[in-house]
């Protein structure tokens, strides 16, 4: 990454009783998740980035300036794709024609995603001749995603693209978005309310409230900050970057190593030793024991040290920050448990992590 890489975005605009005022510096690759309450300005921010919403400000994407002072690149000159919150399919075009709309406006040399590939990824084979009015809500969202991908964008803006999809459909689509992320290294800005989706996809997080940015940073750090409630405490989590080091074919498990620690996780046929991997560990899935108890179903028991204990937002709860090796973890407990175990910073304990609770 040279110095010009990265996304710089600074915008100011206002409606009657809402004002957007943000300054962001985002990585030039990977997925940035945009979080915040309904009405906090997420859609407005995406629209500013796309050039759809006139605003004061500056937008530079990996060294290309899209907006600055009086200059503003028209929307259609910005090599971006936008998946709208309400799909915006063209009613006069069939599914196939909708997909082709952006696709054939890209020079064929610049196309990074193949038409048939996108159709396959999003499971649209049977729908190609259908008119959009005759699609179900989830089908419409899938078409909108495929249409956006087919423009081989250099920035992908997605406004709750999976909201109308059931978990199984999401599970089908997420891997492709991940692959997009891995192979094309297009920066993606992703608005979502589903913390699971975000944890799985995002590298970077931006939290908004009332038109302002309240926190931003890499996923791992931001999530491990006990002061920064991550869209509701029940979803507080840390991300651990690890490497696959072994497999247990009998139990369909594989072993992942981070620092000098090891953890068991559910096997995935796509993984092979040496692969880097991201693990999400939810604070609520981490319990703390004073001793190592092997006669229980929880498989991952890691020695750790208590770093910090904070009152949770909800009365009677506590968030404990621990370090195992070099890796930070969060554990959500009841205050009563903190008292009973007499937890205090510096204390040595055992983390109990349910292996099946590890995703990704």
């Amino acid at each position: 990454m040279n110095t010009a890489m990265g996304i710089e975005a600074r915008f100011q605009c206002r409606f009657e009783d809402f004002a957007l005022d943000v300054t962001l510096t985002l990585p030039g690759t990977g997925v940035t998740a945009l979080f915040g309450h309904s009405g906090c300005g997420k859609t407005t921010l995406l629209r500013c980035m796309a050039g759809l919403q006139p605003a004061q400000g500056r937008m530079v994407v990996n060294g290309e300036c899209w907006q600055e002072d009086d200059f503003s690149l028209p929307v259609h000159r910005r090599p971006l794709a936008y998946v709208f919150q309400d799909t915006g399919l063209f009613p006069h075009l069939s599914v196939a024609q909708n997909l082709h709309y952006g696709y054939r406006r890209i020079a064929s040399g610049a196309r990074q995603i193949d038409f048939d590939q996108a159709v396959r990824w999003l499971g649209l084979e049977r729908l190609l001749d259908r008119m959009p009015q005759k699609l179900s809500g989830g089908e419409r969202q899938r078409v909108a995603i495929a249409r956006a991908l087919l423009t081989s964008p250099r920035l992908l803006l997605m406004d709750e693209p999976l909201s109308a999809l059931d978990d199984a459909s999401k599970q089908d689509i997420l891997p492709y978005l991940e692959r997009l992320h891995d192979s094309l290294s297009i920066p993606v800005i992703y608005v979502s309310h589903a913390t699971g989706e975000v944890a799985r996809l995002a590298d970077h997080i931006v939290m908004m409230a009332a038109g302002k940015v309240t926190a931003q940073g890499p996923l791992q750090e931001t999530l491990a900050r006990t002061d920064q409630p991550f869209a509701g405490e029940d979803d507080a989590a840390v991300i651990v970057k690890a490497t696959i080091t072994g497999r247990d074919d009998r139990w369909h498990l594989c072993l992942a190593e981070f620092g000098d620690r090891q953890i068991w996780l559910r096997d995935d046929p796509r993984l092979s030793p040496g692969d880097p991997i991201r693990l999400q560990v939810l604070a609520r899935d981490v319990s703390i024991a004073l001793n190592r108890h092997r006669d229980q179903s929880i498989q991952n028991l890691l020695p750790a040290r208590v770093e910090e204990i904070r009152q949770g937002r909800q009365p009677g709860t506590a968030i404990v920050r621990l370090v195992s090796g070099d890796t930070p973890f969060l554990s959500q407990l009841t205050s009563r448990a903190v008292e009973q175990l007499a937890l205090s910073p510096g204390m040595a304990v055992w983390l109990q992590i349910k292996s099946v609770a590890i995703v990704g």
Partner: protein
Amino acid sequence: MGPEWQAVWLTLKLAAVTTALLLVIGTPIAWWLARSRHWLRQPVAAVVALPLVLPPTVLGFYLLVVLGPDGLIGQLTEHLGIGLLPFTFEGLVVASVIYSLPFTVQPLQNAFAAINPQLLEVAATLRASPRDRFFSVVIPLARPGFLTAAVLTFAHTVGEFGVVLMIGGNIPGETRVLSVAIYDHVEALEYSQAHWLAAGMLAFSFVVLVSLYSLNSRFGNGVVR
């Protein structure tokens, strides 16, 4: 070609040329009226509708004045070497274009205004330039409006009469269109010829209109909006 057939041919030619020209001229005006927030919007919309208010012969009279040798436009066209427009086919076209303008602009303006602006935004993010968006999104979605505009304009030019009579000078083969021919028959008490011509015109128009509408709803199946 008999004089009646000449009149038929001239009528169709006039209506077709007028309709084509008006679609070209009327589309940008209608788009501007539908989308602009300029203060001139309402005055321009009113001016576009004004030709409707004047009785055709009166409008024809004023056109005769303006396009004639003493008129501003007449002097301009003479200066340009085009000559004077009255009593020529070109003059008829100019008069019909002015007279039928509201029939083109109004339906188009409504059709444009009814288009969901989000779809234009979507098209922009899919790399369509403003021109491209207009042709790939606006025009297909406004198709019923274009049909109405074309039908009203064409039919009105066919039936139009006062202005044509005035500007055209009723020259057989040059400016004597069907409506004038039927009128002549009626005035001359040649009722049976008038009946035949009128009935033929109605039957022909009916067939054309029915086919047009059927075609439209055939293609229009998908577009509900």
